[in-house]
């Protein structure tokens, strides 16, 4: 059948007289193929010494030789200890309790060691405060094996002996003392009683000594406000689990606000119980982790935040506030205030505004509310720095008034906004010593570099919260010839003690070994509170009682792995002790009154100071990078930011409207990867050039955000020198700055792991509902199981008669399930890093991430709503009719792809769902992936031939392919490419090679170990013993793991919960990962 249809490639062809069409008709290829260039060059071809035949011969020979050589097994040596330490049994992990206190992160942790090597950080459940290791703390173990660490004391770039260092520095210090010149100790916040004692001893020996504490990201205004109100330099502690109404004005308290560590308490209050859950209102400019979790989020600029706080003060405490807030914000403030007032002592207000007035006002509001969540008797001591002291020091140094400076745990040459002044001052000192793990920006400028040990090689005591002590103990012998700051202080003060002896001699809290084993000790002599709510807290603690004191090589084992070769007589016993601490109430006595007066004027000052024109910049710290001291950690560099899902970068976040005005754009290139414009950012005449721009939904108009911690230049590998340094804009230690931006040339290539930002109305991926519907309606209304039609009747997809497959009997033995509660998941990402550490997940680098070849076994998807809420998205999609028109699906879906200006945000951790009817298993041609009776989907790497059918057939896209060899490969020069970095690998998990598929194994190595331990002890496994790396790392309790065949277990009960659903249930894969419907508390009081 002939046809008259004319097929055309381009409109141009319709033009009959077009010369282009004519030309193209003659040429198949638009551009000439450069064959002549290659083949025409006969001379080179002929003169080549290698002919084609020779070449083939060589290839053939070398292939044959290589395959023959491969047949020969290598000789493998096994070298046992000469004297084996009693505590170490090869193949059995030991756990030690210790504490991280690097000046930015403070947490009580457990360290898993294998054959004497620390390989993983876990949470210390005995600690009552700061026991949740965040992503950075989880990744800190890799910092120990950093190949760029300084390996001995150095002077002028040359290694020197410590004895030389001692003689020279002692001499110089004495000279300075004789000359009456000032010696300055510039340190991080140690929060360590012993270090404080040591420093005062140092002061008394050398006389003219000044100790300046410097926090790279300062909380000085909050400290000043707290000190002004309560007399102690500390930060109020908040327990968000006790708050039903949480109002935050610019405080990213799920991130690094005031040292962080509040997320587990917050998450507890977010799970609806008896129809109740906390309500969270967030006023902020950047889209933060906290804002993403809020029930109501109000975007506004930093200056508006000040007004909001002033207004809230007037509405809650009293007085009046002059504000010129827009109507919608004004209304939101009034609602928030009335909700706070209604909640009374169940309410709490926090603020992140870097202003002493703002912080004073916040304290006063909580005081007025008599908030239960607000605690002033046990202030948090993890930030001590003072902005004025640092400013004064830089001025003094510049003026040449400082004789010597000893720095420890700080990197002012990177983190100070006025680096040049500091550098000038540093040159004027007669002695400068930097205690540092790396030859970083500061250390390279100092006269001496004192190689400092990692915290896993150090001793220490930390008072994280008043009365809450945490101990730091080495978990490995120092890898290099290092000396910690405190040991050096002891030397300089002429003491012959080691720091360990020094801590022990000053220890007054019961058995030192017991405290060392637990890692924490809570003093029972709480100082009584001058103010504060009348609360009687009863704390139940599970303490590990040890019958035998097992002291080994410089430490005491905290053996949570009960039964790892420990005989019955010295098995640990758990006993439950109940201690109660009563804090007296101050109520509204004189002191509180005085605070109120101060706060009143503070509120007035606050309102009047809130002036701004043009764009405002909010500097923040990223969950993955913090203040930037871990910039050489590849895990953290590749960790995707929970909000932007971008790795290996920092960037300017800007609202869509502002971006349009400034001509900045984001676009996806052909591979789907994200590109963004560059902008030059100027604050007070200081310009940071070529900052890549990301258009951030939810960013307040008139505000932009930029994270600190990137743009490092010294002491790290070239691959890690990512992003731009924002510290020059951090002027006067204020995170809020007036700023101007200008578009710069070029486009930046981002490595973004999530390119689809909205759910497109697919409400069955993240199910969510409101508290009202949740507590009043039937489950089928808000969490309906999908149905299919069988004989013209709607049948639930989970029922056996519509199943393609015969069900296996899974009632025998264990059947593992992982439960993920979308309500308590804050998206913090600790699980992502824990999974990396446990499963030897490789780092692939920015280029590969950009090609969507990321290897994360566990990802946390973040979705924005396209309308104001996800529910409206769903409605919109349901109302599509036809292709065209207002409600047409063609245009409609296009609209749904774009996030709203202030979208709702949802996080969803996704890993292999371990489907009982797994689509991947049926398509594998070599049966490399198969199902275990215990519910896990197994992956046999040695069997895999890399067809990738399984990944294509996986509806959840959780399978990861090894495109390259990521270990011992110079192309991927991360930790797996050097001997030191490979020490972090978990010996129980295979390191995968090129060409095989991998994915979450549901930590089968951990479940198998638990089973084996029980078998060896001849006992039944208790609920809670089974863990995966992610569930163990989750301090917010969002992830729960266990055996659903144990009907008493928590997961078995969670499976029957009304909120439970499976991801893409309609596909019928029957996953073993459960999700729990997200409930939002949208009820305005």
């Amino acid at each position, binding site marked *: 059948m002939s046809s008259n249809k004319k097929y055309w490639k381009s409109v141009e062809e319709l033009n009959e007289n077009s010369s282009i069409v004519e030309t193209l008709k003659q040429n198949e290829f638009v551009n000439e193929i450069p064959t002549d260039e290659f083949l025409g060059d006969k001379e080179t071809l002929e003169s080549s010494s290698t002919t084609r035949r020779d070449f083939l011969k060589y290839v053939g020979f070398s292939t044959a030789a290589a395959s023959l050589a491969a*047949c020969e*097994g290598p*000789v*493998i*040596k*096994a*070298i*046992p*200890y*000469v*004297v*084996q330490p009693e505590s170490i*049994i*090869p*193949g*059995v992990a030991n756990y030690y309790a210790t504490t991280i206190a690097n000046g930015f992160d403070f947490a009580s942790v457990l360290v898993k060691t294998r054959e004497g090597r620390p390989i993983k950080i876990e949470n210390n459940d005995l600690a009552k405060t700061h026991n949740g290791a965040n992503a950075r703390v989880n990744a800190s173990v890799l910092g120990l094996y950093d190949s760029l660490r300084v390996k001995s004391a150095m002077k002028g770039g040359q290694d020197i002996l410590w004895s030389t260092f001692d003689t020279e520095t002692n001499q110089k210090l004495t000279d300075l003392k004789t000359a009456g010149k000032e010696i300055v100790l510039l340190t991080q916040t140690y929060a360590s009683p012993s270090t404080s004692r040591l420093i005062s001893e140092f002061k008394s020996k050398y006389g003219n000594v000044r100790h300046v504490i410097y926090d790279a990201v300062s909380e000085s205004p909050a400290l000043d406000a707290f000190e002004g109100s309560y007399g102690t330099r500390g930060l109020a502690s908040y327990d968000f689990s006790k708050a039903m109404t949480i109002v935050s004005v610019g405080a990213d308290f799920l991130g690094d606000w005031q040292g962080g560590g509040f997320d587990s308490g917050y998450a507890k209050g977010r799970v609806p119980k008896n129809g109740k859950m906390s309500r969270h209102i967030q006023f902020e400019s950047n889209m933060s982790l906290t804002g993403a979790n809020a029930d109501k989020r109000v975007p506004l600029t930093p200056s508006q935040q000040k007004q909001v706080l002033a207004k809230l003060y007037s509405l809650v405490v009293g007085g009046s506030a002059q504000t010129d807030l827009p109507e919608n914000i004004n209304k939101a403030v009034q609602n928030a205030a009335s909700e706070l007032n209604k909640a009374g002592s169940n309410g709490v207000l926090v603020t992140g505004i870097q202003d002493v007035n703002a912080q004073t006002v916040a304290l006063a509001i909580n005081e007025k509310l008599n908030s239960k969540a607000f605690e002033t008797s046990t202030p948090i001591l993890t930030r001590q720095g003072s902005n004025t002291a640092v400013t004064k020091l830089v001025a003094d140094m510049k003026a040449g008034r400082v004789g010597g400076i000893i720095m420890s745990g700080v990197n002012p040459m990177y983190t100070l906004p006025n680096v040049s002044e500091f550098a000038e001052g540093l040159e004027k000192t007669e002695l400068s010593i930097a205690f540092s793990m790396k030859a970083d920006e500061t250390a390279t400028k100092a006269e001496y570099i004192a190689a400092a040990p990692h915290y896993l090689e150090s001793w220490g005591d930390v008072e994280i919260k008043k009365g809450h002590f945490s101990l730091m103990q080495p978990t490995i012998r120092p890898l290099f010839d290092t000396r910690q700051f405190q040991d050096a202080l002891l030397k300089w003060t002429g003491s012959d003690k080691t720091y360990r002896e020094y801590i022990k001699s000053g220890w007054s809290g019961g058995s030192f070994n017991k405290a060392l084993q637990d890692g924490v000790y809570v003093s029972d002599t709480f100082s009584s509170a001058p103010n504060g709510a009348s609360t009687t807290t009863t704390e139940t603690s599970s303490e590990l009682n040890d019958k035998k004191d097992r002291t080994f090589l410089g430490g005491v084992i905290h053996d949570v792995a009960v039964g*790892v*070769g420990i005989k019955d007589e010295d098995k640990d016993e758990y006993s439950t002790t109940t201690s109660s601490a009563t804090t007296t109430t101050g109520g509204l006595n004189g002191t509180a009154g005085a605070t109120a007066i101060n706060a009143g004027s503070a509120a007035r000052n606050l309102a009047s100071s809130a002036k701004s024109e043009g764009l405002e910049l909010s500097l923040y710290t990223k969950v993955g990078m913090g203040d930037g001291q871990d910039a050489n950690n590849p895990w953290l560099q590749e960790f995707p930011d929970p909000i932007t899902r971008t790795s290996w970068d920092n960037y300017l976040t800007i609202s869509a409207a502002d971006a349009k005005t400034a001509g900045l754009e984001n676009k996806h290139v052909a591979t789907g990867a994200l590109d963004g414009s560059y902008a030059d950012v100027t604050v007070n005449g200081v310009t940071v050039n070529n900052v890549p721009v990301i258009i951030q939904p939810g960013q307040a108009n008139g505000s932009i955000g930029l994270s600190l911690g990137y743009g490092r230049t010294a002491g790290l590998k070239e691959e890690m020198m990512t992003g731009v340094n924002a510290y020059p804009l951090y002027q006067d230690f204020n995170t809020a700055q007036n700023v101007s931006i200008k578009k710069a040339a070029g486009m930046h290539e981002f490595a973004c792991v999530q390119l689809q930002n909205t759910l497109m109305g697919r409400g069955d991926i993240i199910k969510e509902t409101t508290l009202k519907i949740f507590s009043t309606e039937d489950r089928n209304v808000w969490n309906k199981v999908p149905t299919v039609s069988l004989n013209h009747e709607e049948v639930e997809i989970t029922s056996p008669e519509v199943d393609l497959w015969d069900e296996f*009997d899974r*009632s*025998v*033995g264990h059947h593992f399930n992982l439960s993920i509660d979308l309500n308590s998941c804050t998206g913090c990402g600790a699980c992502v890093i824990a999974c990396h550490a446990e499963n030897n997940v490789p780092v692939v680098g920015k280029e590969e991430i950009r090609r969507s070849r990321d290897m994360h076994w566990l990802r946390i998807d973040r979705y924005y709503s396209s309308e104001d809420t996800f529910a409206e998205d769903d409605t919109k999609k349901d109302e599509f009719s036809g292709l065209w028109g207002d409600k047409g699906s063609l245009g409609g879906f296009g609209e749904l792809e774009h996030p709203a200006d202030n979208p709702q945000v949802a996080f969803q951790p996704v890993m292999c769902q371990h489907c009982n009817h797994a689509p991947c298993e049926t398509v594998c041609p070599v049966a*490399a992936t*198969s199902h*275990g*009776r*215990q519910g*896990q989907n*197994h*992956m*046999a*790497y*040695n*069997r895999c031939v890399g067809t990738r059918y399984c990944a294509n057939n996986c509806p959840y896209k959780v399978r990861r392919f090894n495109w390259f060899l990521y270990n011992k490969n110079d192309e991927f020069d991360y930790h797996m490419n050097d001997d030191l970095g490979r020490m972090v690998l978990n010996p*129980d*998990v*295979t*390191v995968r090679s090129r060409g095989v598929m991998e994915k979450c*194994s549901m930590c*089968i*190595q951990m479940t*198998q170990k638990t*089973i*084996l331990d*029980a*078998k*060896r*002890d*001849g*006992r*039944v*496994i208790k609920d809670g013993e089974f863990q995966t790396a992610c569930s163990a790392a989750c301090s917010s309790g969002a992830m729960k793991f266990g055996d659903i065949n144990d009907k008493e277990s928590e997961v078995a009960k969670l499976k029957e919960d009304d909120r439970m659903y499976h991801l893409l249930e309609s596909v019928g894969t029957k996953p073993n990962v459960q999700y729990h419907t997200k409930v939002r508390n949208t009820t305005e009081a």
Partner: protein
Amino acid sequence: MKKSYQSLEDNPTNNMIQVIYRHLASKIPYLGLVILLTFSTSLSAQEGDPVKGKTIFNTNCASCHNLDRKMTGPALRNVESRLEDEQGLGRDWLDKWIRNSAGLIKSGDAYANQVYNEYNGTAMTAFPQLEDQDISDILAYTAEPAKEKVVVDEVTSGGGGSSEGGISSKLILGALAILFALLAIALILVRKTLNRFAEEKGIEAAQKDKSLPIWKAFVQNQFLVLVTVIFFLLASAYFVYGYLSQIGVDQGYEPVQPIHYSHRIHAGDNGIDCKYCHSSARVSKHSGIPSLNICMNCHKSIYQVADETQQEGMDEYGVDYNAEIQKLYKAVGWDEAEQTYTGVTEPVKWIRIHNLPDFAYFNHSQHVEVAGVQCQTCHGPVEEMEVMYQHAPLTMGWCINCHRETNVNVEGNAYYTKIHDELSKKYGVDKLTAAQMGGLECGKCHY
């Protein structure tokens, strides 16, 4: 063999006797003289029986004392005479010391305190139960002259005996070969002669038909060619497959180790439990190569092997066991003379015999402690191995066979109670194999 040595050694004149043994007839008068001499020396001391003395010494003293070496306590050769000569102390002092050294030290005796301090304040166990006669016997034993090393001549002559058998068999073979060669030559000659006869008589040997040669016939028969080719292909495929599947299978791998450690002596002759040294097999995935301090638990006092063992080592394996013990001392940094650790160590680089690939997870404690599998099941008759070798192929098929056949040891293990009941109901069996417990699932070993 052993017995005869014992008696030789026990004889106070044993080194002489070896000489005499061969020329007994001519040297009888000399022997008489020697015996006379020996008796005269022992007469000058107290009456003691060195044979009895040796028994008592071995029971009570040998764990801390040696005749010629310093151990926990001093060397005791000629202790009585040396004491007499050097310190002027007599037998009564010795009696006191042996029966209650602590008392003697307390009494403030100068020499007693000196000895006590010299040996780092290690008090000697008191032996009040020893009779005077016993002490005399011991002293008689200590007063024996040091025995010289076993004459090496005998070793070589003994070896010569066995090799003679080899030569004779070769001779027989050679003779046979010559015989056959002669026969063959004879046959050829006979044939030649017969041919000549035939030629002379003009008899034509029957000519064969001029049919096709067999190879041509074969080539022309295409069916046969096809069958042969298929056969060759199949056969070569079989052999290639066989070759390929043994790649990486190191069954029988028997590397030379840096120290010749004999499992035969330790686990076999001395019956030391495997898990005494490989203790982590109970709790860990690794059986663990014992650290050198485990060796020193015994080898602190066992500084050399018995002479007959040494002999056996030299004869049968060509190994000087005593030198191997010296290697251990060097590695662990043990100063034999001072009986102290020098602190200079040299970790032993053993060659690992059993190498599983990284992607296979194996846990010793699962098999040894939970399942109660004997070490020999996988490692073979280790107690008979002079040099350790890989007994099992360690292939996956080998693992799986065992998992299919072996019943799980569920008795008295609370972990298994429930799962065993349920599974045995499901499969309708009493006993469960590892496979039925899920021991064949990929992910149980590969992760």
